[in-house]
């Protein structure tokens, strides 16, 4: 029993949900699967707004992008052929590593993103895919790049709005991707997770994205490391240069699971492993 909750609302439309969020302000939060918010309910929340009955569980393919509704579950994403086609299934991998079946069936992409836990698995993949988030607000919809969405530890730019969907621009067929996660056990949260996408043309790296999670207070792209790879061949000496930059750049958090030094080492190991796999 969670005693602090006083109300549970079932809005009939997204507009009504946004209206209720606006009325209740910081005392209300949307709930979808609940696997993030039920065990970690912020102390000031008195009201939950059910967003699972608003038709936001969809994966829609358009010519230029994929649109994923905020309440699409991790299971739906993990088994979706459309998601599997995106950069070698980088997002699919992030949705099925380390999730017990019961959680994967309920947890939603929106919850994983809005929860903004630094250890969440989908945000690095979404960063590597240049995703954009669409937030429904009282005065209409706002679309912003996902790297501008994560503000700080468990704090996002969603504000008084409600996350409606995530859009992923369709990568070219040259883009390869990989998601790697290292945890203490298969179902534990990540000590470090990493997503990389890169465009390879004639063996030379074009557009590069390297995103790390469980390292800082928010998931982050490593722009300096990305620049090292740009217009270079994906070969051993270049990969080692990237690994050096990654281990120098990161400023890892410390918690009961791992020290900063261990996480820094892991970030380098996962980067090397990811790039070698993409090169093969």
């Amino acid at each position, binding site marked *: *029993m*969670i*005693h*602090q*909750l006083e109300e549970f609302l079932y809005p009939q439309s997204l507009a009504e949900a946004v209206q209720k969020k606006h009325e209740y302000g910081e005392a209300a939060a949307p*709930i979808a699967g609940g*696997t993030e918010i039920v065990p970690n309910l912020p102390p000031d929340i008195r009201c939950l707004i059910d967003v699972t009955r608003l038709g936001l569980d969809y994966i829609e393919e358009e010519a230029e992008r994929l649109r994923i509704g905020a309440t699409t579950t991790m299971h739906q994403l993990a088994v979706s052929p459309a998601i599997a086609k995106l950069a070698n299934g980088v997002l699919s991998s992030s949705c099925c590593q380390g999730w017990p079946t019961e959680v994967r069936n309920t947890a939603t992409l929106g919850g994983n993103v809005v929860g903004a836990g630094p250890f969440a698995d989908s945000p690095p993949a979404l960063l590597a895919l240049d995703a954009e988030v669409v937030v429904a607000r009282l005065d209409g919809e706002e679309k912003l790049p996902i790297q501008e969405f994560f503000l700080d530890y468990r704090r996002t730019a969603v504000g008084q709005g409600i996350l409606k969907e995530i859009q992923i621009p369709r990568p070219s067929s040259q883009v390869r991707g990989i998601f790697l996660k290292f945890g203490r056990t298969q179902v534990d949260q990540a000590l470090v997770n990493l997503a990389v996408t890169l465009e390879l043309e004639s063996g030379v790296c074009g557009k590069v994205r390297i995103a790390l999670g469980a390292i800082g207070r928010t998931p982050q792209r490593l722009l300096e490391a990305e620049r090292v790879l740009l217009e270079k061949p994906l070969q051993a000496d270049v990969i080692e240069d990237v690994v050096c930059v990654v281990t120098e750049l990161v400023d890892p958090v410390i918690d009961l699971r791992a020290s900063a030094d261990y996480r820094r080492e892991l970030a380098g190991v996962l980067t090397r492993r990811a790039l070698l796999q993409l090169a093969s």
Partner: protein
Amino acid sequence: MQIELVVDGRACTHEVEPGTLLSEVLQTELAVWLEGRMVSASLMLAAQAHGRQIELKPFVQAAPLQENSLVPEPTRC
């Protein structure tokens, strides 16, 4: 608040608090399937299940091999 559930085909009504967990309402050691998918009733509020179909099944039935096959081998350093 009042919620309506259909548990193993039988419709029932429960008076719950907004913060009541689904596991507190069902009080079962069986696996809980909501709308055809196994869920964790201790991570879900009863209010979330309002109007939904629930099935209770033994755990051995609830973990088919094809579900497990989605989880790749863990990465090792």
